[in-house]
């Protein structure tokens, strides 16, 4: 990494001049009161409220990290979204600082059959994946790799993100909150295995024999492997996460996909959490290690969702001191679709939305004319 550049970035951030208005708090107070009054007046019907999913199943609490003590009733820990008149959906209350522990997050996970093992689940999924064709015919089989994913914070949908990227990492992103924006990537590979970066071409060159792939993948992991399955930030937990992140977000040829599933089955400490039904109503088997829970449909091999538990509280230091901060609640990614797409399927990027084409001064660093992100067929 270019640490010199990053240091300069930090230094410049520190030099930004600020001038604090003395009446900011009082203004905020009055605005808040005005807003509350206006909200009461606004006669938008609350849409639906909460579909309180009281699944007829055992709800288990995934510990946010080992040593997390149970938290006294904390409004911020409730995975409930309340819709209020005049508002789309309230952001769940954020945790306060100086916590005594990180809250656990309750997912409704039904028990799996007692005799199901991680090896069973992933072997079955690998077989299903291996019998499928690589995405599209040939590889790469399209100009852009397109993924659609839901990002949830607690039980609240933050955004549905659509991302289109080409082999050089350039493309277009669009979210529920973000209007279309250009993604420009000056030559940095973006697919990670355990912290090691790969280009699409490098992925394609990886061995598809699990016995050969395993030592490579294990060496890619930057965090130390620990045989203690309870460690949330251990190498095997990070590796587990990065493999599924890769499989769900990048174009991985079918033979490599199969091998990655088989390799993931070798990671020590992974447990079967149970059966989980995602926000789209799809059911799969949840596998758990550290702060990660991954849901896979063993019959099709499709990765449905990945949940990240809240991390332990952290100490953050700024210019004038340090504070203890609670890491926010858990997040979930739900993987909706992934596949090849043409430039014609991408949304147009408005001028001034971070696009290389918008600035006009510097190219995106790619010689491929098909990757100009603002073109739409």
């Amino acid at each position, binding site marked *: 990494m*270019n640490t010199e550049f*990053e240091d300069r*970035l*930090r230094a*410049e*951030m520190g030099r*930004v001049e*600020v001038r*604090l208005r003395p009446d*900011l708090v*009082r*203004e*905020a107070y009055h*605005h*808040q*009161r*005005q*807003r509350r009054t*206006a909200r009461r007046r*606004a006669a938008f019907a609350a849409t639906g409220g909460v579909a309180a999913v009281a699944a007829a199943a055992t709800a288990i609490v995934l510990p946010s990290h080992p040593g997390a003590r149970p938290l006294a009733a904390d409004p911020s820990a409730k995975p409930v979204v309340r819709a209020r008149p*005049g508002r*789309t959906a309230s*952001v769940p209350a*954020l945790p*306060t*600082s*100086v916590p005594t522990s990180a809250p656990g997050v309750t997912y409704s996970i039904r028990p799996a059959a007692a005799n199901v093992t991680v090896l069973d689940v992933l072997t079955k999924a690998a077989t299903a994946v291996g019998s499928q064709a690589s995405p599209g015919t040939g590889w790469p089989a399209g100009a852009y790799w397109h993924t659609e994913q839901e*990002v949830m914070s607690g039980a609240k949908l933050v955004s549905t993100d659509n991302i289109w990227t080409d082999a050089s*990492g350039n493309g277009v992103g669009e979210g529920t*909150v*973000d209007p279309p924006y250009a*993604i*420009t990537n*000056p030559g*940095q590979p*973006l697919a*990670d295995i355990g912290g090691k970066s790969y280009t699409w071409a490098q992925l394609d060159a990886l061995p598809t024999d699990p016995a050969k792939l395993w030592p490579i993948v294990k060496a890619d992991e930057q965090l130390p492997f620990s045989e203690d399955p309870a460690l949330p930030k251990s190498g095997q937990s990070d590796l587990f*996460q990065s493999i599924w*992140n890769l499989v769900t977000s990048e174009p991985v040829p079918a033979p490599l996909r199969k091998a990655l599933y088989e390799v993931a089955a070798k990671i020590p400490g992974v447990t079967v959490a149970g059966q989980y039904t995602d926000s789209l109503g799809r059911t799969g088997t949840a596998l758990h290690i550290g702060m990660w829970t991954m849901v896979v449909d063993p019959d099709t091999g499709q990765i449905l969702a990945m949940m*990240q538990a809240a*991390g332990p509280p952290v100490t*953050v*230091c*700024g210019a*004038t*001191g340090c*504070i203890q*901060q*609670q890491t*926010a*609640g858990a*997040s979930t*990614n739900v993987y909706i679709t992934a596949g090849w797409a043409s430039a014609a399927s991408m949304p147009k990027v408005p001028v001034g*939305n*971070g696009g290389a084409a918008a*600035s006009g*001064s*510097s*190219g995106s*660093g790619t010689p491929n004319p098909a990757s100009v992100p603002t073109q739409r067929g």
Partner: protein
Amino acid sequence: MDGEQPIAVLEQLLADKGEQLLRTAILLAGSRSDGEDLLQNGLERVIQRWRTIRGEPEGYLRRTLYHLAVDGWRRKKAWRARLGLLAAPDAVPDGADAVDQRDRIVRLLHSLPPRQRTAIVLRYWEELSEAEAANAMGCSVGTVKSAVSRGLGRLRELSEPAHTAGRTA
């Protein structure tokens, strides 16, 4: 809640750490006037939730700024404009945006999409780890990694035009 308590506590907080908080907000928002607006929105949220906040309000306020920056803030702004209750923050005639021209980094950050900008500020200014930033942003570590990598690449490209021009055929 009589309303005076949060005002007193928050005014003390801003007296102690206001500049630091405003700097973070400006970096997160990518402009001076939007940063002020973001901080004010954060304060409003803290006041609104005052009864449920336990412990120091600073941590709560920071988390709120992170969340608003990546998520609800612009939507809120649109909502606020629709109600026509408050003056548009950009209309403040104090020459704030002229000052932005002196702050190259603010200008550069402004050119990034919100998620990349937030990821960069959380990692390099607020010094959160990737996992912490992921939690704060409500996304996966992979998303943070790619947002940081893309954001850094873009910033480097913008701040070193000669270097990039040399590479571009």
